[in-house]
């Protein structure tokens, strides 16, 4: 995958928007970076911290992989 460190403001805004749909009672644990609520994760993305970069990677991966995942599911069905 490309250079996550250099993600653009557009990507940052896209990820923040997508994270806003996370239910408020859900916490996401990103390994040793710790556990985050939706708002905390958005803040991490905003500040471009390592945890924010991990969240951006996860969201972009989700977008990029969905078509191949759907194909995999269809093949295994």
């Amino acid at each position, binding site marked *: 995958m490309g250079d996550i460190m250099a993600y653009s403001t557009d990507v940052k805004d896209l990820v923040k928007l997508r994270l806003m749909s996370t239910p408020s*009672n859900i916490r996401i644990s*990103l390994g040793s*970076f710790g556990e985050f609520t939706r708002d905390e994760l958005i803040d991490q993305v905003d500040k471009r911290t390592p945890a924010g970069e*991990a969240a951006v990677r*996860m969201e972009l991966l989700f977008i990029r992989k969905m078509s191949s995942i759907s194909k995999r*599911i269809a093949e*295994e069905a």
Partner: protein
Amino acid sequence: MARILIVRNDYDLITHYMHEWSKPVIEAARSKGIKVDTVDGPHVVTKEVESRINKVNPSFIFLNGHGDDCTFYGHKDQVLINKKNSCMLKNTLVFSRACNCAKELGRHAVNKDCCSSFIGYEYEFVNVRQTDTEVVPLRDDISKPIWESSNAVPLTLIKGSTAEESVQASHTKATNEMSKLIFSDEIGAIEVLKALIANDDALTYHGNGGAKI
């Protein structure tokens, strides 16, 4: 008789999940007649783990804890295994359920012949949980697909499959779980789906794909 060593950190929420989700692996191994040794909690320090490896000569080591590209951490983030001491793994088959360790530590350990095969995650290991329920990992239905997909690796190895087959079994389990999550309207289903995709993408192995317990 085959012998395996399970190293289980348990000092924060995510390592508590790892500790608890290792229990089905221990039960499955014992039911197959495999001798299981564990190093738990505060005992997860280099001296004790190395001593146990030397004593029991396991054919498989299952590591649970925090990690980064070059290090697997023990109790309260003490360095347990890094590039300098990775030969303590003594040519075993290793599965590291920890962030990032497969990226450099696993590759290094295999290249230096310190382990036959190193299965692990190249990026962060992601978990999802609901905050308004009690933290009982084995009864947390939201995160269950994440842990069962990860557990597919050791459970498949215990059945006598190879390192490569165990990674493929985890991919297959993850795909099955994804197909349910895509159509689920349960709270957190999409977040769990994202976590599964991230973990599935990060899971890999180095070394001998034909290695077995």
